């Protein structure tokens, strides 16, 4: 049995990434009664919570209440937060392996998957994630500009991110003004001329990834009439078969909602949502380097040997005029310096959370991963809890085998001094609590959950630094 993990020699762990997975991992590491663990959490942004702050939509505040759980973890006396400290920039892999017994990378999936069609980089065509980060006040995106002068927008994809983008475009400014949306985004959206949003799904209604509460909400917006084409929301025979075989009531309900939308008469609301299925863009059409539409091909469904349904082109095309395009067909992880990456799946090369050496396929001692950068983007926030638990269980098993790093400087103060030297503007959790109070107070005055700081300099100034 290892000596590490005692009061005299605590197990020192660095968690890279302060999103939900980072907090779930920290919670499980700190929750062991029989083991003394120090957790230092790093994030390249000054603020914690990752996608809960910068991904979850501003009009979905209830989902953000999960941060109360994260705050409880952060209150543990052996937890420290170093915000505004970027792995690979302020601290290298060697720095961390010199100070910790174990590292766990929880950096999420930060880029969009490309559509892979000509014209996707035309002006006016944007990754949905950039729009999401922008309206949520992510410091890296405050300078982004989105051309909302266009009347018709197309959102490619039918996941919950696509639904968020469509909903934010279709909400009235009065509705958004009650949320914690970034102030600059609220001003831009106030001037928005977008009247019509088309959401495009490659497969049928039964295969759409959005969840029922999300699509129901989108279909009932106060200022937008939702429509769908009756023949596109019909349940084809193959989908009917799958839904019945798997007794998938959730999907049956989803199709019912969509058929209800198709049967509905417009109520004369100022904006319009058009839900489309069984169509794929084959090309974005440009004029003067700006997108002005897209060519769509109609698909039909085909069954695979595994019983799933895939989209096949029928060759039948149509052109959809749209001056604004958001691409939302999935996220992908970004490689981290010095950490083996699995290009095929866009994740850190790992076996159930243990980072592997690409040559030998054997675990790299002391290196672990959890969350979306481990398995790819899937599930809800809570899915990352069992995922992190699996990784932490393997960290624990390796510790029992003495398979941990032997850092030269295992003292908590040594790494804190190094961080101060490399990044004088690091943020502690106490700093965040102060910022949080100011944000909430600013919001209270305006009848909003909070008014976010969106620039790092602003945050520093608010702390008197």
């Amino acid at each position: 049995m290892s000596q590490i993990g005692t009061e005299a020699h605590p197990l020192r762990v660095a968690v890279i990434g302060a999103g939900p997975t980072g907090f779930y991992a920290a919670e499980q590491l700190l929750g062991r009664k029989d083991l003394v663990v120090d957790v230092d959490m790093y994030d390249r942004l000054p603020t914690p919570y990752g996608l809960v702050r910068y991904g979850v939509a501003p009009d979905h505040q209830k989902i953000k209440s999960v941060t109360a759980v994260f705050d409880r973890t952060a209150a543990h006396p052996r937890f420290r937060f170093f915000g505004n400290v970027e792995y690979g920039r302020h601290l290298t892999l060697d720095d961390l392996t010199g100070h910790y017994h174990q590292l766990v990378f929880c950096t999420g999936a930060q880029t969009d998957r490309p559509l892979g069609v000509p014209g996707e980089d035309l002006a006016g065509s944007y990754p949905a994630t950039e729009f999401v980060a922008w309206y949520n006040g992510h410091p890296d995106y405050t300078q982004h500009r989105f051309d909302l002068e266009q009347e018709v927008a197309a959102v490619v994809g039918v996941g919950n991110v696509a639904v968020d983008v469509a909903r934010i475009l279709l909400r009235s400014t009065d509705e958004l003004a009650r949320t914690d949306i970034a102030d600059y985004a609220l001003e831009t959206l106030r001037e928005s001329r977008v009247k019509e949003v088309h959401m495009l799904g490659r497969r049928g209604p039964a295969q759409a990834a959005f969840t029922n509460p999300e699509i129901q909400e989108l279909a009932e917006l106060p200022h937008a009439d939702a429509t769908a084409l009756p023949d596109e929301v019909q349940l084809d025979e193959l989908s009917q078969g799958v839904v019945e075989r798997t007794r998938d009531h959730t999907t049956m309900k989803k199709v019912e909602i969509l058929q209800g939308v198709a049967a509905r008469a417009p109520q004369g609301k100022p904006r319009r949502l058009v839900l489309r299925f069984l169509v794929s863009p084959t090309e974005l059409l440009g004029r003067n380097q700006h997108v002005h539409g897209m060519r769509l091909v109609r698909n039909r469904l085909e069954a695979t040997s595994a019983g799933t349904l895939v989209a096949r082109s029928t060759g039948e095309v149509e052109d959809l005029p749209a001056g604004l395009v958001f691409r939302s067909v999935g996220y992908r992880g970004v490689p981290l310096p010095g950490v083996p990456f699995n290009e095929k799946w866009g994740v850190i090369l790992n076996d159930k959370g243990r980072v592997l050496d690409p040559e030998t396929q054997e675990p790299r001692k002391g290196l672990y991963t959890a969350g979306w950068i481990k398995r790819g983007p899937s599930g809800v926030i809570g899915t990352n809890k069992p995922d992190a638990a699996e990784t932490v269980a393997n960290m624990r098993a390796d510790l029992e085998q003495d398979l941990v790093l032997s850092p030269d400087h295992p003292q908590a103060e040594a790494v804190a001094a190094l961080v101060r030297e490399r990044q004088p503007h690091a943020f502690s959790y106490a700093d965040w609590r102060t910022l949080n109070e100011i944000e909430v107070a600013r919001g209270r005055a305006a009848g909003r959950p909070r008014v976010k700081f969106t620039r790092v300099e602003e945050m520093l100034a608010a702390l008197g630094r």
Partner: protein
Amino acid sequence: MNIEHVLAQKGGQVYTARPDQTVREVLAQLAAHNIGALVVVDDRVRPLGIISERDIVRAAVRDEALFGRPVRQLMTRDLITAAPGDDLRVVAHTMTERRIRHLPVVVGDRLAGIVSIGDVVKAQRDQYEGEIDMLEARVATEHP
């Protein structure tokens, strides 16, 4: 959740067999890697069939000379395969109903990985656990 999210956390290595390898060699590989089946591939990594521990156990009962025979004589050729974007729920149903324990995953005509029923069940369990956790947290904040 899709099949690719299961494959992404299983390392980069896919263990395979060649059709002319002997059953004895396959058994050694299954034991060495602690796995239950190997996909049999050609030299361009296109799947030709699959051979599982069950196939070997069943055949060994009636065939004393089994272990020296080439895999191609024993493997299942009628392959059911999945694609990375396939929905986990549907695949889980197919595996349960048809009593398949191992499913090769194919991109184009090349083998990209293999998922076991254990992988699929665990991924589904994690998904449901996560959803329940979120719902409980929400109820707790709304009705403290």
